[in-house]
């Protein structure tokens, strides 16, 4: 009996959630294309200690797509700099990028690295390319293209496992489709990318029961000073039939940072986005955008996810919080 009641309750929750989700689930190709086209101008300088010639080379400029990964755009930079570094060093294994003393992780999307480390900085983004000293930087070993490809596929499978409870959808992609997904990322071709990517995001049944296909929201939260992302399971909607919002997620994972914003958050809504004078609030970035915290995470997962279908959320605490964190 009690179980029956619970099932009825869940059904109501689902119907409520469906009313909110119905218009958020279809992939919005206009938004998705806009997000895909995001890119960052970058100025790459060769690290002084790696210069083996009398004169240091001029910096190298490149426009890096947000959705891509650094190694995909660094090939040209490597070719350009290779005449200036000792020949033994000039290989993929030794190559790493630095920003203000931090080694940048090659396995994170370029846009995530920028939001995390350089939000609000002047463009182009100034980076230093190194060809020595990688062993002490705590980066994952990089053996060339194959490392990145492997990482991408494994992350894609993990996101899909979270989302649907299994990674069957990735396994069901043909070799050609997987190849297409990867090459569209390499060549920055949206149409080619989205035709395969949408296979992984579209629900197979229409109506409320389709919503139950999504078990967990694949999301990762990054803070500049944490060595690993925070990844916890969240359902797309809550028991009360409302969709899980960005605020729900952040409040649960980082209560100390987001409880204080509750008041100002409500105020901001009233004041139509006017800054409520709360300069303590951490900056929350998804694809370089600060979404309103009441945005349903489901919508963000459908429209603003990375190429590996994980939603990357960067939280940049204000300097005062950072001190609290560090202690």
């Amino acid at each position, binding site marked *: 009996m009690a179980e029956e009641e619970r099932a009825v309750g869940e059904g109501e929750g689902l119907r409520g959630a469906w009313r909110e989700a119905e218009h958020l689930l279809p992939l919005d190709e206009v938004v998705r294309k806009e997000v895909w086209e995001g890119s960052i101008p970058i100025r790459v300088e060769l690290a002084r200690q790696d210069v083996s010639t009398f004169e240091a080379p001029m910096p190298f400029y490149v426009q890096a797509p947000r959705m891509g990964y650094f190694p995909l755009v660094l090939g040209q930079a490597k070719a350009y700099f290779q005449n200036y570094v000792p020949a033994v060093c000039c290989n993929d294994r030794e190559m790493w990028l630095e920003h203000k003393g931090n080694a940048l992780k090659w396995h994170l999307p370029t846009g995530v690295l920028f939001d995390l480390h350089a939000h609000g900085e002047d463009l182009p983004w100034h980076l230093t390319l190194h060809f020595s000293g990688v062993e002490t930087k705590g980066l994952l070993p990089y053996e060339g293209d194959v490392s990145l490809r492997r990482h991408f596929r494994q992350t894609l499978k993990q996101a899909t496992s979270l989302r649907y409870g299994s990674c069957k959808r990735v396994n069901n992609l043909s070799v050609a489709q997987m190849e297409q997904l990867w090459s569209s990322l390499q060549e920055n071709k949206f149409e080619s990318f989205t035709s395969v990517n949408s296979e992984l995001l579209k629900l197979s049944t229409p109506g409320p029961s389709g919503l139950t296909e999504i078990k967990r929201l694949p999301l990762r939260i990054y803070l500049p000073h944490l060595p690993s992302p925070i990844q916890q399971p969240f359902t797309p909607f809550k028991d009360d039939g409302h969709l899980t919002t960005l605020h729900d997620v952040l409040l649960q994972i980082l*209560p*100390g940072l987001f409880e204080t914003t509750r008041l100002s958050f409500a105020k901001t809504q009233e004041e139509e986005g006017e800054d409520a004078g709360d300069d303590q609030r951490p900056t929350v970035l998804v694809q370089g955008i600060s979404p309103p915290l009441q945005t349903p995470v489901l919508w963000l997962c459908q429209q603003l996810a990375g190429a590996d279908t994980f939603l990357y959320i960067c939280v940049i605490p204000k300097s005062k919080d950072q001190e609290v964190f560090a*202690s």
Partner: protein
Amino acid sequence: MSAELSSKLDLASPATGAATGKKDDKVRIFAKNVGDAPILKTTEFSASAASPFSRVIDHIQKKIRTSAAHKDAVVHLFINQSFSPAPDEQLGDLYKCFQNNGKLVIDYALKEAWG
């Protein structure tokens, strides 16, 4: 307001605790061999929730390499027979997302079984 704010901001510390897993939090791991990978003497063990996944890779690899036949073995680890987490992912979060009956099931192979 600033006094109230700063007292609330102190909560940021426990939040990091929740985020990175408290020091004494442990995660139960069940390691299953795949293919010709040898069976470990202890298939169940626990590890700190705050530690990175690389800790488990190193542990299993070290155990396997103790036998002469596998002294150069490279192990590949998979969760729920589906994917391989990156070495820098946090064990506690992987547990929360993918545990089964209170255990994180890890399959290990000498080849990339689920590439």
